[in-house]
């Protein structure tokens, strides 16, 4: 401090004249606008069909809203900080299997998203039940539309390119069932994610950050909820609302987020003690801003990993429940479970082909089993790799 003219090393600011900062939450505004646009479309087209789909049901609209919400949750953090995205990607890419699985999932999700554009809904045609896939022969019934070949005194039906993956019960073509089945699984996954992730995050973060009796109350509720079997509740509700995919998705999502909330809570408890939160608090940053700027971004990894573990479970549950004929049946929401069930069914249906043994119509159950299990395995592999990649301990 040699002379009066020394300029201070840091300019002094008249803080008194400033109020707290306020900025436009663009992400939130965008989300609200998009959902509003979707609502306008819904009001305009109703359930009579639009450019993409004939007769979109209530489930379809919920699914579309879910897709919009997911886009606004997932995309902005990835775009906002390209350097970090790049860092995560580099670490992810070091696991070859995971990259293959991610590529596979990308294909599957694209197919599921585009299913309504690629193929029409499954068409009923009782005269072409159980046609074998192209170039494959199977014991012929009455309704073989391809060439019938005779070998060793027995007649065999050869598949045609009209139905490259063959046909199933009631003459539904297999590729339609598979594509629309994927779409059903995606709908289940999207609705479940959009219900579970915000709920689990909100409850976990509030319980962990506020603590005290709020924590006791919320976690007590989670305990109670976890002891309620979703399956039983669903079966009971079927008698009131009828079998529906929307009901299935809502009931199972609303009763399955407890374990995720617990993970988020314990992560929040750890984060709350971190120096940067104390530093922010002591600098006068409000609780809400601390939650938004520090807690939420830092628990988002836990949420993401929790979701990738929970979603495949719910996809399998959906297939299992339709396999038991307790799900949405019919051609509106062809489900893997339903198709597999029909592949194994040896009685009922139109004689004589419905009575075929499962081995004689193997394509009906094999394709969905392979597609379903490979999707679930890929989801699990990607989820495990994400857990390793996003673990903050790997960041230092």
């Amino acid at each position, binding site marked *: 401090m040699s002379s009066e003219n020394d300029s201070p090393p840091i300019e002094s600011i008249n*803080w008194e004249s400033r109020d707290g*900062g306020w900025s436009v939450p663009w992400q939130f505004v965008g989300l609200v606008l998009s959902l509003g646009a979707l609502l306008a479309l819904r009001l305009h087209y109703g359930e009579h069909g639009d450019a993409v789909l004939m007769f979109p049901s209530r489930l379809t609209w919920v699914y579309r809203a879910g897709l919009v919400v997911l886009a606004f949750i997932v995309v902005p953090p990835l775009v906002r900080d390209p350097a970090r995205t790049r860092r995560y990607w580099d670490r992810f890419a070091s696991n070859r299997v995971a990259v293959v699985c991610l590529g596979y999932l990308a294909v599957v999700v694209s197919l599921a998203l585009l299913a309504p554009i690629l193929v029409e809904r499954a068409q009923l045609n009782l005269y072409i039940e159980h046609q074998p896939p192209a170039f494959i022969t199977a014991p012929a019934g009455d309704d073989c539309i391809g060439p019938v070949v005779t070998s060793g005194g027995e007649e065999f039906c050869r598949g045609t390119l009209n139905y490259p993956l063959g046909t199933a019960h009631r003459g539904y073509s297999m590729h339609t069932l598979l594509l629309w089945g994927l779409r059903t699984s995606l709908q289940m996954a999207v609705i479940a994610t959009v219900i579970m992730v915000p709920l689990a995050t909100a409850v976990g973060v509030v319980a962990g950050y506020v603590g005290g009796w709020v924590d006791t109350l919320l976690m007590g509720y989670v305990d109670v909820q976890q002891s309620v079997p979703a399956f039983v509740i669903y079966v009971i509700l079927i008698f009131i609302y009828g079998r529906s995919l929307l009901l299935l998705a809502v009931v199972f999502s609303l009763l399955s987020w407890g374990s995720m909330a617990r993970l988020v809570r314990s992560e929040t408890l750890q984060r709350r003690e971190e120096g940067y939160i104390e530093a*922010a608090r002591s600098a*006068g*940053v409000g609780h809400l*801003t601390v939650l938004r700027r520090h807690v939420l971004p830092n628990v988002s990894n836990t949420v993401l990993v929790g979701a990738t573990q929970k979603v495949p479970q719910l996809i399998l549950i959906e297939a299992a429940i339709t396999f038991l004929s307790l799900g949405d049946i019919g051609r509106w929401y062809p489900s893997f479970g339903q198709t597999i069930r029909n592949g194994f069914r040896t009685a009922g249906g139109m004689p004589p082909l419905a009575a075929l043994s499962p081995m004689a119509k193997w394509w009906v159950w094999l394709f969905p089993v392979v597609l379903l299990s490979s999707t679930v395995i890929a989801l699990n592999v990607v989820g495990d790799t994400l857990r390793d990649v996003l673990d903050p301990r790997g960041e230092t």
Partner: protein
Amino acid sequence: MSDATDSSALLSVRGLEKHYPVRSGWLNRETSRVRAVDGVSFDLRRGETLGLVGESGCGKSTVARTVLSLESPTAGSVTVAGQDIADQSRTQRKRFRRRVQIVFQDPGSSFDPRMTIGESVAEPMVAHGLDDADRRRERVESLLEVVGLAADDRERYPHELSGGQKQRAALARALSLNPDVLVLDEPVSALDVSVQAEILALVQDLQEAFDLAILLISHDMSVVERLCDRVAVMYLGELVERGPTESLFDDPKHPYTRALLAAIPDPDPHEQLGDAELDGEVPDPASPPDGCRFHTRCQAVIPPDDLDIDQSTFQSVFALRVGLRNGDIGLESVRERLGGDDETPSPAAVAAAVREEYGVAQELANERAERSLSEALTAFADGDASAASERLAETFPSVCERERPAQHRSDGCAVTCHRYRPDDSSNTNRSE
């Protein structure tokens, strides 16, 4: 150093108490209280550095958190520039937040791993309404340069910086709001020794440049000696001694301060280790000892007037007594050490072993003392530790365990010890 608020002080702490209730049972009733801070007072003037030292668990970090109003005190007051922080309007609170800033011990956790250093340093400014992004960026860059980082470092992430660099950035963040008071909570204890020196030098420069009042919290006496103008020593939530750094280091009065100073490693190999080292653990702050809280570990416990015994003998018998009272000596473990598992050792052997462990002579010179001690040890060997403790208490009482010492002040120093009676201006130190 009067208890009335010093008008020249920027930060005044008076009778600060912070108790944490311990709740248990079905109804969540309060069963006891952890007295983390129990009546602490000090003043901090502009441009001055006050060191707050003590072992871990003595409540010094709680003082910091309470001073920053991250926790509300159970009792007492914290005043910043004449304004009590307990009753503040919203605007006053924001002003207080700008005036007092903190740097934490662990550089690893003091930055959000998801934010760049620049964003973290700018965060307080955003919260206080500096909306102009360009101006904020300029300010962040000059702040980083002031603390010895490069302006480009603002784009880096915490994991790309070393511990020392992060601590510099933490100082930059703390300075961003032009504070008057800086609280440094163990600012260098997580760093390498070479980096420690750099950061301490930086703190000195910054203090001079910004005329900061610094409250330095540390367990490291050498850091305190280097940086502080005045020192306050804390033990179990209380201040036991305070005074200018030089006089406190040259002539420590409180036995605890002496023990802390003796714990500084001395580079001279010929220097004998002082005999004032600290034994045992800090007692549980949920049930602090009666009288002087340090008496359980003190090397200078005052013997009763009617007992003719030398200080060191009294000291070791007293330690034995405290050990018996707190149940630190287990009959089983003594027996086990003595006889293995063959047979039960004789009471005489047990008594001898206990004497040896506490450094008590096998036969005391004073007859009354010896009788009492041997009776007590016989009772102990019979398995009645409480009777043994009571027997010893009759013969070996001390004012240190009965009465809480009052504060004795002289020339800017204050010490809270029975060896310095407040009415005694002649400063009789009976051990000398």
